[in-house]
């Protein structure tokens, strides 16, 4: 048999003969593929949007916060308050060598800020220079704090986005300008536009970042610090270190190592893990539902093709009587099945891509919703295979039709 334009016309003719049935059958496949791709793209986009919230934050960070003890220990009563101090930093680093950064933080809440006639409020965060490894700043202007700032207790600060816009409504580079924080004047050396939703101790929009040495003096903390942030060396799982950290701190600070309340540990790894697991589960569901729908569609195609073959017994018998080989009948039915699935599926691909690109446009955050080109190609190939499988049973039945059947079925 020659495979020329008529072979395609044969396929088209038989598919278009019962348009409504073809349409309804194709819809199953169309919807299946549409669902699969649309949900895949949607899942991707939502994940990307969510991940944007965590941007710039080290994924293997543990934040340590001291609170009241809840158990008596070595003669000390419960309900005792304790504090981290500078000396703990080196001790923790020494006892837990897997840690990369161990950096302290001091916070002061509710400070009023002003410059000329403009005023604002926010909070002060005192940090060391290596804090940027925990929470990556996005410098709009100027620079971040460095070791010299910290060592020399320089009266400098970095301001958050909201503070910048309210104290410098005229815009422009504010570096070198002075702002009043409480009762002292600090020179602005940078503007941090970090908009991540994960922040330690307060929204970075309304934050004034100063050298920790300066903050200690300003707020008379002595050697005490509020928080210690640690992050693991590359490849270290913080979750597995949590227990060690807890017992090291408990030993040094004289509280019961089993007292989980005395030391609050916030492990970002766990947060990321939860999000990751959530999306893994979501992906599984997407595949399950998508492939399930697609499969149902394919079974629908197979079913309808079986009915069609039954209806076309006479026609197929005639074809056989005038010289069609069984293989040619097989090829024809298979081609019809593949053509139907492919056409319906392609419509599904196009429609889902259309909708996803629309979604991408609408989501101003710049979410990545579109599926990749190769996903679409693979989907198309998968469809062809699916069509072939769906057409197999009907085609086999068609092949078994004998020329005499055409005469018997009068």
């Amino acid at each position, binding site marked *: *048999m*020659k495979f*020329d*334009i*008529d072979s395609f016309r044969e396929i088209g*003719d*038989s598919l278009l*003969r019962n348009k409504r049935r073809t349409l309804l059958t194709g819809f199953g496949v169309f919807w299946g593929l549409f669902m699969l791709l649309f949900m895949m793209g949607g899942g991707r986009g939502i994940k990307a949007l969510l991940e944007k919230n965590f941007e710039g934050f080290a994924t293997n960070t543990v934040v340590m916060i001291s609170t009241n003890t809840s158990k008596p220990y070595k003669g000390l009563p419960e309900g005792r308050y304790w504090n981290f101090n500078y000396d703990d930093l080196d001790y923790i680093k020494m006892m837990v060598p897997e840690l990369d950064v161990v950096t302290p933080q001091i916070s002061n809440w509710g400070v009023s800020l002003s410059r000329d006639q403009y005023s604002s409020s926010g909070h002060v965060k005192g940090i060391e220079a290596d804090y940027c490894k925990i929470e990556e700043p996005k410098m709009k202007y100027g620079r971040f704090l460095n070791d010299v700032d910290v060592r020399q207790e320089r009266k400098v600060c970095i301001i958050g986005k909201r503070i910048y816009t309210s104290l410098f409504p005229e815009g422009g580079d504010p570096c070198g300008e002075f702002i009043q924080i409480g009762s002292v004047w600090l020179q602005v050396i940078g503007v941090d536009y970090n908009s991540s939703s994960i922040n330690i101790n307060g929204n970075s929009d309304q934050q004034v970042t100063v050298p920790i040495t300066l903050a200690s003096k300003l707020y008379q903390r002595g050697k005490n610090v509020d928080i210690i942030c640690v992050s693991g060396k590359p490849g270290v799982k913080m979750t597995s270190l949590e227990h060690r950290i807890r017992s090291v701190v408990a030993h040094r600070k004289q509280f019961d190592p089993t007292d989980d309340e005395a030391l609050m540990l916030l492990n970002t790894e766990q947060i990321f893990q939860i999000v990751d697991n959530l999306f893994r589960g979501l992906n599984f569901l997407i595949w399950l539902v998508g492939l399930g729908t697609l499969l149902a569609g394919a079974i629908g195609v197979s079913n309808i093709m079986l009915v069609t073959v039954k209806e076309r017994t*006479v*026609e197929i018998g*005639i*074809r*056989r*009587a*005038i*010289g*069609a*080989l*069984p*293989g*040619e009948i097989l090829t024809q039915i298979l081609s019809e099945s593949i053509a139907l699935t492919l056409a319906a599926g392609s419509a599904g691909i196009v429609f889902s891509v259309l909708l996803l690109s629309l979604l991408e446009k609408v989501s101003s955050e710049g979410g990545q919703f579109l599926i990749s080109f190769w996903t679409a190609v693979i989907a198309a190939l998968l469809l062809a295979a699916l069509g072939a499988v769906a057409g197999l049973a009907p085609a086999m039945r068609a092949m078994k039709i*004998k*020329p*005499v059947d*055409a*005469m018997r079925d*009068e």
Partner: protein
Amino acid sequence: MLITLKNVHKTYFGAQPLHVLKGIDLEIDKGEFVSIMGASGSGKSTLLNILGILDNYDEGDYYINGTLIKNLTERQAAEYRNRMIGFIFQSFNLISFKTAVENVELPLFYQGVGRRRRHELALQYLERLGLKDWAEHYPNEMSGGQKQRVAIARALITHPQLILADEPTGALDSKTSEEVMDLLREVNRTEGVTMIIVTHDPKVNARTDRSIHISDGLILTE
């Protein structure tokens, strides 16, 4: 001899085995115009199916042009049917969603003849049968006589040596029957095609050169 049957038996094995053909001996020469007569159930349709390689037989030998037609594969049977035999059916058996010309083209499509060439040939044959103006019409837009003429064109287009017609006038009125018989006769005469017509219509029978009566699976008289 174009066709030679020697002691052909055929039994349908169902719930009750049915011995339909009980030893058929038959010879038909090239260019003959033959009718096969018989009551329904006499086995004449079965004989036609065997002659047309649409069905196989259990015992005996069947030769076309000296070639033994026995235990053929589907592929071989299809090949022989396509090259040597043309079929005309009582119910025309045109494919309803194809136009007249497409129906006529179909055997050539399965022979692998190019699109343009077979379209040309099909139009020629339709013209010969006086259906040129109906080439683009669908079967349901045509009368019985026209449909049968399309079917004849379809049977002729492969230049078969043998045309088997199963009650070709069974669904036609007497006037059209006459026309169709004239047509078949003309084809037989001008092309030298051997024509075997199964019928139980005495009028059709009367117009053939030779009639074979079959009864209860055996050939009665010649």
